[in-house]
């Protein structure tokens, strides 16, 4: 009976997330310097391409790609965070908190500064590759230090340290770089969904959805891994392979985000946690699609605030995500600490 209740709750949460997703999508397209009637939006979107009118151009060239980027990347960040939390068995883990985003930023930054000296523009696949390389490298570093660290706080400190070192190195390179390149890099490293083009979005979406599907296929071993490495192994999980898959997938996902829009803070920690609270369980087959959806909703909402709060000035997306995400992280730390002292 309670089993059916859980199934009902899951269906209800998915339905609500779906409605929220569509609502925020429409609201987002509708809001801005030019406001457009919902009916008009529907007609233009359903027509499949811009009809050449200025409204059509605003929707198809500016608002839609940005919006979809926020949705896909927000989802990718959240799933990446969930995979890292599984890996480290620590709810505080996430690509930004562990310094992985900073690592990606370092690689992309160094490449931009240096490669732009020789060629006029950097191909997107190169940015992508640099971001992935940076993510992987920092993850391996964190792994090396975090091997024997069980405490949540210690892992956090390691992540902050590694992130700071990466930022310091990035700053070092920026100091000695051409001004034009720096402006370019600075805009990117603030984190924004504004500069997204359709082709880049297509590439990233394809990668994200493949990674998402693969993560979903891992939901059974992830489920077992919640009981710890040794129990998982005793139930037949190939732990070594599983760990490699987790790190690989989470790095790909966070690299996609960083490559397209720069580092975005706290989404990876806050969204999976909120998703678990919504579903009332940590079952991965629900949390993976659930946190993808909620991550999309969360980032679209934050982007809406970033665009409109101080219009015509635009806030960096991280500024907004931090305002909503950081309190969740703090709450998580406190509640965990309390549970430990209780038990």
């Amino acid at each position, binding site marked *: 009976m309670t089993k059916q209740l859980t199934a009902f709750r899951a269906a209800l949460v998915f339905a609500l997330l779906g409605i929220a997703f569509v609502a925020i999508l429409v609201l987002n397209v509708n809001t801005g310097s030019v406001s457009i009637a919902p009916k008009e939006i529907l007609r233009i979107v359903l027509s499949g391409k811009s009809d050449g009118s200025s409204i059509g151009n605003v929707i198809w060239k500016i608002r839609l790609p940005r919006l979809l980027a926020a949705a896909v990347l927000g989802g990718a960040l959240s799933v990446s965070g969930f995979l890292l939390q599984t890996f480290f068995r620590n709810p505080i883990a996430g690509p930004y908190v562990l310094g992985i985003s900073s690592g990606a930023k370092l690689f992309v930054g160094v490449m931009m500064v240096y490669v732009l000296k020789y060629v006029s523009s950097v191909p997107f696949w190169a940015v992508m590759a640099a971001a992935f390389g940076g993510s992987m490298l920092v993850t391996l570093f964190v792994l090396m230090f975090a091997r024997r660290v069980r405490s949540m706080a210690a892992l956090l400190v390691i992540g902050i340290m590694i992130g700071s070192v990466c930022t310091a190195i990035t700053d070092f390179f920026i100091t000695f770089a051409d001004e034009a390149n720096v402006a370019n890099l600075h805009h990117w490293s603030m984190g924004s969904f504004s500069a997204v083009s359709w082709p880049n979005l297509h590439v990233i979406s394809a990668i994200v959805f493949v990674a998402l599907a693969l993560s979903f296929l891992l939901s*059974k071993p992830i489920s077992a891994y919640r*009981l*710890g490495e040794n129990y998982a192994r*005793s139930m037949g999980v190939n732990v070594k392979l599983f760990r490699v898959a987790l790190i690989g997938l989470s790095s790909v996902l966070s690299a996609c985000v960083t490559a397209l829009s720069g580092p975005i803070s706290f989404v990876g920690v806050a969204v999976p946690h909120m998703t*678990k609270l919504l579903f009332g*369980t*940590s079952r991965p*087959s629900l949390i993976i699609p659930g946190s993808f959806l909620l991550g999309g909703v969360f980032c679209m909402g934050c982007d809406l605030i970033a665009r409109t709060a101080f219009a015509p000035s635009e806030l960096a997306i991280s500024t907004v995500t931090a305002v909503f995400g950081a309190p969740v992280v703090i709450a998580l730390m406190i509640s965990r600490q309390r549970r430990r002292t209780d038990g």
Partner: protein
Amino acid sequence: MADGYVFSTEALSVGYKGKALINDINIRLEKGKILALIGPNGAGKSTILKTVTGQLPSISGKTFIEGRELEKWPRGELAKKLAVVLTERIQPEMMSCFEVAAMGRYPYTGRFGALTANDKAIVWDTLRRVRADDIAERDFSQISDGQRQRVLLARALCQQPEVLVLDEPTSFLDIRNKIELLDIMLETAREKRTTVILSLHEIDLAEKLSDLVMCVRGDRAEEPDAPEKVFTDAHIRELYSITQGSYLVSRGSVELVRTEGEPRVFVLGGAGSGLNHYRELQKRRIPFAAGMLSENDMEFEVAKALAQTVVSFPAFGTASEETKARAIQEMLSCGTVLTAFDPGKQKDNPNTGLLETARQHHVNIVFSAGELQ
């Protein structure tokens, strides 16, 4: 299973980082038998259990499950034969007890781990067996140690293994939970014919539960043997290097360190009447002597463990004149007599005569340790 053993090891060496700690471990277990590993802390019980379950690589030698080498089993198939309950504390986030127990169906479920009606029936059945069905919907991180251990046992049983390995399953449990947990294991071994291997700190429980006992002692492991062969006072004292205090196998009781010094009081006990007085004297750290006790008296072992001197006579015999003389001498040198037995009811107590002698010699007579300074 050509050799008929469901679990066996062959010249197994276990240890860490390529260094062998314990060599030449040979275990052979038939279906439905219970093997208990006992030994002092840090003797290597956990190391052995981790090795035979594949959590730790062996240094040399082999482990067989149903006659097939451990490493040669495909992961998923092995999980249907071998299940574990580990010492590590797990803290899964937002997982109900039902979910934890249901993870045991892992080797049987499909790609996404969905439970069939049959799986669910097995999980509920198992939860009922360990008497944890009432907490099935509770969050695993919010239940007591005893309940936690039941749920983890249920998880292992849901794997429907041939061999169940438990590392110190009774640590941190209160006495009721200990008894119930071990009872479930006994039931599992006898009714489901599951072979159980477990390490225990409570040797009194090990003696009562197991078919075979293996003593693990840091550098080596003895051949598994029947409990009645393993559990002798001398063997246990030597295994655990007990130099102070004692463990009395027959009573399953631990006695603290005897108080040294010239005996100040002579206890006249018999038929168990002295037990409480010996312990009371020990708590007050008053050195004492005891007598005259038959060597098969129920309090003899305790007296021997706690008293400076015990005047005793052989079982089924009577006290000789020589024994009586020794008791009187001992009693007079103590200067005080504690009468533990009831002279009115225990008419045939050999100490009746001694009490009479004490009166004649005007020895100070007391009836409890509290009367002594």
